[in-house]
């Protein structure tokens, strides 16, 4: 048995979803020059997906955002992070050593590696939070199916 959410909830969630995603990317991209950052943005990204999941129901969301795709995204996020760290070693600096120009304080493309690292943390956390939610919901659905 699956509950059908009311039209109001579904409409509001659908309108809210793009705004949340935009806000998430704002938090991630401005993470180094204002409060925010990769993890915070990633959590907002993940919760936007959770909102969609709760209002639209599992089938439609899991068709659009597949479990396996999210898992791949999560692994790629970490791998790129560590890869950038190793790139620092290869380019003659230390692990995670900065090899990009530092730029001007207060601009978005500044602070060297931090912006890039924030982006990958954001994707990883967003995918990870949604995966945790999927896993817990799957328990629920299996229990209802029994």
């Amino acid at each position, binding site marked *: 048995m699956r509950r059908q959410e009311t039209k109001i909830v579904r409409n509001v969630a659908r309108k809210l979803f793009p705004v949340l995603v935009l806000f998430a990317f704002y938090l991630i991209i401005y993470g180094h020059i204002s409060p925010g950052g990769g993890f915070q943005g990633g959590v907002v990204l993940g919760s936007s997906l959770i909102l969609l999941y709760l209002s639209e129901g599992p089938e439609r969301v899991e068709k659009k955002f597949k479990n396996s795709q999210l898992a*791949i995204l999560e692994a790629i996020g970490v791998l790129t992070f560590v890869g950038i760290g190793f790139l620092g070693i290869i380019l003659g600096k230390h692990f995670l050593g900065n090899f990009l120009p530092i730029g001007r304080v207060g601009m978005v493309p500044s602070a060297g590696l931090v912006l890039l690292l924030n982006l990958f943390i954001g994707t990883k956390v967003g995918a990870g939070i949604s995966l945790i939610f999927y896993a817990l919901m799957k328990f629920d659905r299996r229990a209802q199916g029994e």
Partner: protein
Amino acid sequence: MSNFPILIVALPLCFAFFISLLSLTKLNRFCGHLALLSVGVSFVLTLCLGPRILAGEKIAYSLGNWPAPLGINLLVDGLSYLLSLIFGLLVLLSVIYSLEDHKGKYFSLVLILYAGMNGVVFTRDLFNLYVFWEILSISAYILVVSPQPASLRASLLYLFLGSLATALFLLGVGIIYALAGTFDMDALAREIPVIWRTQPLAILLVGALFLVSLGIKSGLFPMYVWVPEAHSLAPTPISVLLSGAVLKIGIYIFIRLFLTLFRTEVSLEGLILYWGLISMVFGGCLALVQEDLKRMLAYSSINQVGLILIGIGLGTKLGMEGSLYHLFNHALIKGSLFFSAGMIIESTGKRRIRELKGNGIVPFFPRFSFLMGALAIIGVPPLNGFISKWLICRAAVERGNLIVAALILIFGIVAAVYYLKVVQNLFSVAKMCQTEKRQSSSIPWIKYTCLGTLLGGSLVFGLLPSQGLYLIREAVALIFP
């Protein structure tokens, strides 16, 4: 060479996520081999550092090239090298052992566990130490879950106690930050004696929080509840890692924080000595009455950890030597005991000690290696357990603490009672049931190599104790210069 410390930590981490990516594709069955490769590379890098460390050098590394008080620093010295060596060996053998039985995500968790363990022993930053400790604990909580349903509750119990321990540790770290304003261990070593003069109570509070948290994590007497549950219900390779490596992390952090960092005026030696004694006595007594084979081994671990603490608590150089050598030996011996117990349980399907009697299907090698491991841990001369027990006993006698020495000997005999009970059950079988039809053993040869390596190690380090003492010399020199 200068990048080795971070590579040892980061390579397994990198491969862990690569494996979790790989486990989604059709190349699923190569996950184990890839894990083996990465642990092997990491272990070889650790070995490469060996000559320099054992010559008395310390290798420092700062992440992102940020100098000491700002950035996170790694430092490999004698003590961390010894621990890293143990972890590398045990993780390598566990991965080899589990190549056939497990796949995919399991290996990625083992690699994260390995990265966390190396991180804990290398880092010089107190908060970073907490983070690595949490990383290794979380993967350990998950790894305890095996196909047996009871392992779920063991994992949850371990999770509750483990997170309580790390939370207490974090609170202690917070109080230290409030007092000293830094997390860097080198800076703290200078700051703490100054703060001690003005605010001794706060430092005592931090010490108490750390002690409780480390006591939970290394399974000391009143907080040992999770040890038998988690050790007995986890898959065999994970039992080896928990007993040989994860319990040792608590002892490592204790030595690192209390003996090389906070050398305050309060001497903890008496407390540690009696805590170790109580732990040893209770572990030994409870091991006597266990019916489950792996559970008995878990209680024996509590007993041995108590013995290691006694050596530390004696407060002499000889005692410390004995303790660190016993730490190393216990990892080898308990590894071989848990591996052989795992094989015995695998081939008979029975866990209870009493039921092992009358089973003709246990292959010879696990029985033999269990006997050897038992002899080593009891402390029978040609094997390595004897050397370290002898050192601790001699330290106790030199300190004039004859009761402690007597208790160590008595609990050697108690250990003999509970181990030989199992050995008797295992071997009485062989004579009675020779006529019985022997099932061809389904244990692949690769598992025997793990067991053989550990047994060979305990024989070598028993016959040539100078080699083992050479390994730990730098670690001891760190504490008693």
